[in-house]
């Protein structure tokens, strides 16, 4: 089931029972409007804030940003497919390991 939203920060916050003001305090944001902007998808939180969300909500970043994760993963798989098709024979241990890694990405 593909995710329609790029992230589920609002849902994750509500599950914890925190208000936007609580969340702003926990994330170290100066105002709760920052949290509101993230939740309305007006702005994307930086990596440090995304990791803080993981700590606060106890959910992995990939799950919090499920829609974005799907898009990124699809892009990576496409590039891995290209790379694999352009790869030569895996005649050395290093090349065999590289091929296995590409195949793992495509699984």
């Amino acid at each position, binding site marked *: *089931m593909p995710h329609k939203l790029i992230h589920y920060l609002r849902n994750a916050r509500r599950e914890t029972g925190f208000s936007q003001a609580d969340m702003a305090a926990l994330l170290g944001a100066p105002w709760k409007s920052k949290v509101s902007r993230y939740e309305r998808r007006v702005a994307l939180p930086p990596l440090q804030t995304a990791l803080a969300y993981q700590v606060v909500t106890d959910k992995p970043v990939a799950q919090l940003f499920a829609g974005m994760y799907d898009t990124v993963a699809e892009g990576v798989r496409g590039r891995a497919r290209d790379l694999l098709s352009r790869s030569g024979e895996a005649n050395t241990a290093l090349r065999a390991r590289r091929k296995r890694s590409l195949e793992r990405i495509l699984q």
Partner: protein
Amino acid sequence: MKNLNDKRAILGIDPTKRGLAFVYFEGGRLIDWGIRHAGGETADFDAVFRLCPADVVVLEDPDAEGSERRPSMRTVLSRLARAAERRGIVVVKVSRYAVRRGWIERGITRKHSAAKMIAEDFPALEAFLPRPRIKAYMDEDARVQIFDAASLVLHAFGTTDDSLAA
């Protein structure tokens, strides 16, 4: 905890004088809910749709048998349906009378009791339970509309127990 039977992205909307009350389900799970007011039903719909890009919109059918909606609200509902269709979204219309009949069959005759039952199925909504209307002259709590929107969706698609679905 329950899940919606239909796993598509579903948006239930109940228009009110205070804006659009909405509930949003994705993959059968309740994801978002609230009331949005951006000034005018089309602007409100755009604001809600920006937050919740649904595949299906569930609205009340103002032309259904037993509908008691006033003419201005019928116009709002048809404008909302048109706005959704313009975006290529599937519109499901549900009769409010049928929803009420469904609750009555389960022994529920008051909106507040229906809201309590919905909150039992979707605990995330518990904090949003409206205060019961004690006197007839008191205004209805605005949060009732969120549960009305949820009622429309639940009536249209039904639910299964989370533990059974897993």
